[in-house]
């Protein structure tokens, strides 16, 4: 096979890995890049960077830690380019959290979890559903939402914490009974 064909196959293999681990990568990028709009851009850049450096990846080693290393480099570079300097957790702590994320990436039940999450959102009360819509679908920050709904940001963080817990329990029940 010619070198162009080899490169094409390698890139396809790289993208297959990216797609299989996309939720993990998005979650990891989200932990560094807090701006949802920039998360999308960064994730695209990460997938390209992984494809470009695929030849340097030792396939006998787990994909997660290597991909997160690439993702971290790209994410920090994008933050610099956009003049953003968010407060970040320690790199080793983030990697330790990333290892926990591998459990989800390897479980192969991402699509089922997503569908369960969708159903569970529908079961939320209308006010909580609206909060989820504003926060995650309209990409507003909690402080912006607090201004809109005339509550303190502190109380909204607690409310979102409860909503996440409710969703988590609901998803778990659905996955167990399915």
């Amino acid at each position, binding site marked *: 096979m010619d070198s162009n064909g080899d490169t094409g196959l390698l890139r396809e293999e790289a993208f297959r890995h990216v797609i299989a681990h996309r939720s993990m990568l998005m979650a990891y990028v989200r*932990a560094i890049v807090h701006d949802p709009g920039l998360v999308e851009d960064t994730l695209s850049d990460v997938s390209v960077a992984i494809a470009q450096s695929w030849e340097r990846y030792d396939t006998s080693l787990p994909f997660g830690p290597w991909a997160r290393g690439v993702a971290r480099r790209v994410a920090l570079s994008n933050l610099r380019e956009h003049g953003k300097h968010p407060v970040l957790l320690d790199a080793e702590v983030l990697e330790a959290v990333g290892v*926990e994320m591998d459990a989800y990436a390897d479980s192969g039940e991402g699509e089922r979890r997503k569908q369960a999450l*969708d159903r569970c959102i529908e079961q939320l009360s209308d006010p909580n559903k609206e909060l989820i819509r504003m926060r995650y679908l309209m990409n507003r920050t909690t402080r912006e939402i607090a201004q809109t709904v005339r509550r303190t940001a502190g109380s909204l963080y607690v409310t979102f914490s409860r909503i996440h817990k409710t969703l988590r329990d609901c998803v778990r029940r659905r996955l167990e009974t399915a």
Partner: protein
Amino acid sequence: MSDEDRRQHVDTVRPVMLRYLDGDLSQDDAAELSESLRHRADLRREFAELLYEHALLAELSKEKEWAPSGSVARIPFLGRLVSVRFWLAAAVALAVLAGWLLLRGSYPPPEITGSARVLDGGTVQRGVLLAAEGTPGGLVLGGYCRVEMAPGTRLQIEGSERSEQVYLTAGKVVCDVDAGKGGLTIRTDLGTVHVSGTRFSVELLAEQGGREMMTKGKAIAVAMAVTVMAGSVEVDFDGGRELLVAGATRVFAAGKGRIEAGKPSYQMHGEEGEWKGRGRIVGMVRKGPRFEITVTDAFGRAAKEVESESLEDGKKAYEVWLAPGRYNVRIDAKGYKPLDLKNLQVKSGTDLRIDLEFSGR
């Protein structure tokens, strides 16, 4: 530490994790969170789950096309990036995008017309205060929002490209928003109006016959009138959201009720059982609506949020269990001005009783 204690600790830290993800955490608090995550596997799992949920929610939002008009265009879903053909498609798309950007030119800055002027002088830009005196003024935002300012109107330019926003502090604005170009939000102290492609007006009404109540030079509006001439608008008011369609006029009146706190008193219970290492803020309400209590610590971090409980005799009560320390408490009830109680000291094994009284509605 028991399993229950661990769960409670995770519940306490989760809002801090959400703050971190919002970029709303100080360097010191992030360092503290780092240390907690470094030493606690259950917190790392919790954070990983939270991040994973964010990722799934982001994917769901794209599949459901729930993103509002005026939001930034999204990058194509990664699932499409599987083929070498992607590179060709991406190159073509980039070329088209570059051409479009060249043709489109830069985003127009805010412009004022008529009697509108910048209150402190200087150029028209985001953040400045504008006023229209004597005769009507106008403001054009992003080239697609035309805001007519009635005489006596005061507002501040906020927002960002394609998500334009003004903070209306007095007077009336009539807004024309071209469809498909972006959104416009009119924010007031009473409520918020969101639109994307419509014509509508927002007027702040003062207490009596147009006479404005003034506090520190700022008019206090007691009601907000919204009229929709075309399209529809969403109005956020008093914790709820209402959709108004063309032809509708609604007056949203501010609640005038007052919440007052009784004299605080302490009652010791000892350090045994549930009181060990904890204290409580409690109180009764003889007559009043359902209310919500938000407790923040000395650093402004959310510590607890509880709702009132209805008792059989029609009274209401609340209780908040807390670790000993100093806290700020806010009481919110629909139609009432929120009450803030500052720097309350919670002592171990002790009730801090503060009764509440609702009046004026």
